[in-house]
Structure formats: C-alpha cells, structure tokens
C-alpha cells in the first residue's frame, strides 16, 4: 500500500497528550511509529505474544479507561494513549524441585492472593480475554489445575496487575501454578522416557553415524522412499 495507490484517510490521536494525524486502520503501535516515535520500550514481538506493549487509553469524552495491546488494537479517532512500559513487580525465587503441587504452596509464596475482593477488574482489563479473576478464585478454593488451565494463554502484559486493588501480580502467580501443574500433576509421557533411555543405551548411535557419512544420492533415495504416516 503506497499513498499513490490509496488516498489515506486520517484520524486524530493523542499520544501522551499531543495530537497527531495518522492513517486510519493502523494498529496503535504502527500509528505511533507513523507519528514519529521509535520504540525502545513498549514494543516486542509485534504479534500479540509477548505482552511488551500494554497500553491504556480513553476515547473522546468517554470517562472510561480502556486497555489493550498496542500491536493488536486499531486506532480510533479521538484516542488518548499512554503506554505502560513496565510493571515494577518483584519476582519471588523458589526451587521448583522442592515444592508441593498444591494451591497452598501458591498461597504461601503469594499470600496477597487472599486479598482478592472479586471485583473482576483484572478480567475486564485482560487483552487476551482470560477469566483472570476466576483463576485467582480457583486457587483460593484450592483448585490448582483449573487455575493452570484458565491462565494458560497469559502473555504477562501486566495490565491486570496494574489495575488490581489487591496488588496481586497475577502473571507471576500463574507462572508458578502452571509449572507445578506441568511438572507434578500432568502425567509423564512414558513413551518419551523409553525413547530417552534407548538413546542413552546407544540404540541409534551406529546407524546415525552411518547416515552422517552417506552420499547425497543415498540420502535422496532414503528420503524419497520413506513411508509417510497419515
């Protein structure tokens, strides 16, 4: 898309109070770049996976504060934007090998969870549309598995934690929850362990070594004749 091919329709946005005209249809991130900003903070994967570009905004005379990811939200006329580059949260250290996989472990490391007043602000602010409050409440009820499942798609943007009146650092809580689940509660893959042992015993070593010495022609034959599982 170039300007010749398409007459750009412009919208007005306010970046930290200053007005800029930018083409409609851009994401907030691209609109800020169009306006002349070069990101150091507040920009990461640009695809909705990393949570670096948490943004708070208002629109026109609407009193409400909205939240979103700058790389996944389209600009609107009259948007007032502020990027939130960083949540100053301390990450507690723990030794995952020494923990018991229970909700009380999580409550012990993150006691502030019990301060949750079930206001649901976290859920309303989540750009991934996760049931954040339900995940926290599951922990309070002792259901670690439910919390792990509900929080799986968390990208740790930190918006919920900034809005939370109980000062819960949700994304760190959920990180611990998921590791406890993945390590201790999910059943281990037996076929995986068996294969690891076979390799340790050298079952494939000789044949692999032979393959590394093979000519391209021989390898081609093997490749083209290999049976493909459907």
């Amino acid at each position, binding site marked *: 898309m170039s300007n010749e091919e398409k007459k750009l329709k412009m919208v007005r946005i306010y970046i930290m109070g200053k007005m800029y005209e930018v083409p409609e249809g851009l994401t907030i991130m691209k609109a800020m770049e169009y306006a002349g900003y070069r990101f150091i903070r507040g920009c990461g994967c640009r695809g909705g996976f990393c949570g670096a570009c948490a943004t708070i905004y208002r629109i026109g005379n609407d009193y409400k504060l909205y939240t979103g990811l700058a790389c996944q939200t389209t600009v609107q006329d009259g948007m007032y934007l502020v990027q939130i580059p960083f949540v100053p949260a301390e*990450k507690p250290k723990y030794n995952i090998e020494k923990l018991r996989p229970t909700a009380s472990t999580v409550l012990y490391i993150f006691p502030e969870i019990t301060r949750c007043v079930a206001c649901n602000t976290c859920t309303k602010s989540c750009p991934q549309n996760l049931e954040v409050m339900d995940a926290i409440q599951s922990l309070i009820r002792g259901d670690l598995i439910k919390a792990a499942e509900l929080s799986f798609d968390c990208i740790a943007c930190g918006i919920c934690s900034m809005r939370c009146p109980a000062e819960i650092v949700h994304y760190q809580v959920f990180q611990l929850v998921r590791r406890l689940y993945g390590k201790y509660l999910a059943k281990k893959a037996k076929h995986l362990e068996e294969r690891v042992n076979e390799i340790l015993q050298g079952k494939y070593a000789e044949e692999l070594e032979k393959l590394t010495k093979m000519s391209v022609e021989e390898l*081609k034959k093997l490749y083209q004749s290999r049976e493909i599982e459907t």
Partner: protein
Amino acid sequence: MAHESVYPEEMRESIEKVEETRDRRLKEAFRRITPEEKDELLRKWHPDFRPEGKRPLKIGPSKGLVVPHEVADLIEAYPLIDPSQIDLSRIDYDVDILIIGGGGAGASAALWAHNSGIPAERILIATKLRFGDANTKMAQGGIQAADRPNDSPILHFIDVMGGGHYANKPELVKTLVENAPFIIKWLEDLGVMFDKDEEGNMIELPGGGTCRKRLHACKDYTGLEIMRVLMDEVLNRGIKVIEFSPAIELLTDPDTGRVTGAVLWNLETKEYYIARGKAVILTTGGFGRLHIQNFPTTNHYGATMDGVVMAYRVGARLRDLDATQYHPTGAAYPEQIVGLLVTEKVRGLGAQLVNVDGEQFIYPLEPRDVVAAAIIRECYGRNKGVVTPTGMRGVWLDTPMIEIIHGEGTIKKSLAAIYRMFSRFGIDPTKEPILVFPTLHYMNGGVEINVNAQVLNAKGEPIPGFFAAGEVCGGVHGKNRLMGNSLLEITVFGRIAGISAAKYVQNVEPGKLSLKHIERYVEMLKEAKIPETRKSPMILPEYRGEKVLSRAISLFKL
C-alpha cells in the same frame, strides 16, 4: 453466511466458492509433488532464486558467499563505534560466561552452564530488549522429537536432511535429532505444559516435510510456554540479566584472537559498558526485521542479525545465508496483521490451501519452501489469488475444515492464539477461511559451529572462547528448516553451548580486551571501497513515518 462478515464483497464471493467445494475437498487429498516438479517450482517462484536479490560478499572470512543484499549491506558496513574512543580498562561486568541474547537459546545456555557448576553470579545474560523478547516466544506450532514407537531419530534425521536439500552439516543434524527426546524430557521436568492425552502420552501432529507425527505442542503457544518456563527458572537460579543493553561489538585478545567480552550499549542512557567473559556465547537470533526482498515478517522487533555482523568481524565463517525461509502462511488480511504468523499447525490439523475458485493447488504439508513457492505461483503466475482492498494478494487457508474434521471447538482449544488474532479484527476462523501469503520467517543460515557449539573460523577451526547457538547459527537446517526444529535447535544447542563454555572456562584466565579485529576490519572495508555511511549492527529497525505502512509485494507483479 449466518454471521456478520467483515470481508469485503469481492472476497466474500470467493469465500462462497470455497464453501461450495468444501464437502468435496474434505474427501480429496492433493497429490504430492515429484522431485522434478519441486525443483522447477522452487527455481521459478521461490524468492531465493531471484538472482537480482543477492550478491557475493566482498570481504571477510566468507568472501564470495552469496547473500541477500540486505545481509551484505550490514556485513559490508562500518562499526558504530570508533575503537579509539572506547575505554577498555574500565570493566563494568566481569564474569565467567557472557551470554549475548536473552531468547530461548541464551536461557538454555545459562541454565546448563549453571547445571555444569558455574555459579549464578558468574553468568551474565545481556539482551537488547526485555529478557525473553525473542522469536522463541512467537513460535506457535511445536517442537519436534522422535519419541513415538513408530518413529525414530533415524527418520527425523532423514526428514531434516531432505527438507534442507541435503545442504545441512550432517553431524549437527545428528546432534539435533539424537538429543531431541532428552530435551523434551528436560522441558517436561521443568514444568512445561505439553498437550497430552489422559494417559500422559504426548499428542503429536505432523508438520510440513515430516514423515511421522512428531510435533509436540502447547496449544499454539508452544514457544511462549517454553520461553516463560526457561525465564522463570533462570530468574529462580539468580542468574543476572541486563536488559535494553545489546552488544554492539565483541572484544578479542589481540594476540590469540580469542573472544573475551563485548561492548554493550545501554539503549536508554546511550552509554556503553564493557563486559568481560572468560567465554562468550552468542544467541542473538535471526534477521526477519531486515525485510529481505521487501517481504513482511513474522519476526520479533529485535531480529536484526546483529550477532552475525559481530561474529563476522572476529573472523567467524558464515554459511547457507543465501537461503531465506518464507513461511508459507503469513496473514494477508486484514491490514493490521499482515505478515504475522499463521502456524503450520493449522495445516497439520487438516486445513487446505485453496485459490480464488475454491480449488486446491498444492499438498498442504510439503516442506515450507515448496508451499511458499506454490502460493506465490498461484497468486502471481496463474492469477488465481484473492486480491485485498489494499492490493495485497493471497490464498485461502480453509480453517472451518478443522472444526468438521476434529469436531466443534477444536480451533478455540488447539489454535487459541490464531482464533484470538483473527477474532480481534472481526474474522471468525471457525466459520470463515483466512487469507494468507508467504512472509519472511527464518534465517536458515548463519555462523558456522561444530557439534560442541564452538564458532568456527575461515579454516574451520574453533575460535577460542567463542560459542553460539540458535538461529544465529547455520548448518543445522541446510537450505530450508522444517517446522518444529527451531525450538529444538535453540534448546539442544543452547544446552551444548552452556556445557561447552562451562568446561572451557575451568582452565583459562580472563583474556585481554581489545578492538584490534575492528581496526583490521575497517581497513578491509576501506580497501574494498565500501561507502563509509554504511553502519552496523542495526540494533532496531526504522519504521518512523511512511516506512511503517505495509510493504507492497510488487516483486511478482504480472
């Protein structure tokens, strides 16, 4: 259609044809391409085969190697710093192991250096943006490992070599496939939540070019899940990470050429720091943000190939950089998400690629370069693409098939990220197909290493003190990487780099620090009459003003 569609009228007309042919296509398997057809398709339609897109390097250890212009422009370029202005006597960070790059490879290297006995405070990770801001997080589809009874590392090896057009370095491939099950086990033990059935068996899918179902996934957030677990563990161990401080040059011992540290650049204060390491591990990733041949990219903001540039200046040999991976299915509509990754898992679950008339034109799980070339041919050779309002072309990825084949709710469950990405812009992939076109995805080549992750010089000998892992390296994937082998490469070789570096530092003293290699490199640049305005590394791409608007892919215009 029952629901409100955001697709414009002309695109909706094509969608109706896709819907009409769907029942028939559900029973149809498109035939596989023959080796001869494959060669011709790639030669004619893959962007790598456009000679005007590349040139041979004029200087350095891999002089003569043909690489894309965008790569050559950064390699044939002057350093950002003037060596005479840098005070190397003031050492800000003095450690045993300096890791440059905080993605999956860097984190794995740090953990295994620590496992090998290096104290946490003797390891430093320096990274350009935040810790974990890397392509690792964006990997969606999965990680390969031959761990099912009907599979074996032998078959994995053959798939990797064939997919890479036999240009791979075989001993690196052996290392990759032989270590794969162990790595999955390691990740499982760290607490990565893999998709499993009720018995604990891994749920595995096929990927393009794999002869077995071998893709282990965590929904379609596989890389995110692996990266955040690795990060959590690095932080739990107390390993130090400095963020927003990319390396902009390596430091070497002037007598031996050993790599002994790096000049780091604080992006916010614009000050430099001197970091000394008895060993240096380079894990800086790839080059998507160079927009090779003007393609949009799936890559992270920081993917600017800084590591290759720095390594080349200390004498590292490069390989396979002539081959660039275009992921066949980048989003082509709507405008806001053009170029973003639509994981291969979508095809692994049964979605077909169809043209404007609703007809298939390629078996959907051919290797990536083949599928990408076929899509470009369909759009620009046969004029059977779908044209968007901004002039972008693409083909349909028929996602509603997944719901028919695997049952309602599969997309929301197994492709949560894709569902979210499109539904944010009003498209429901459970009901309507999505439009795709190839997008710049992966740096197949890079710095050459050996099986111990040591970086090699022009003669093929290890450069002392210098290790590398991940996308910055070349050789593992030959000319074309298969899906699910990059998450595997970063963990397998990140681990090896950490172990090798830990062994290396046991017997050496900290090295002397110099920028002698930079002085020599500048002389070569001058001799080759490289314009002095050309500077590198790039550090961050430039998108201000008009540059941010989507890149038109006008290369293949009829």
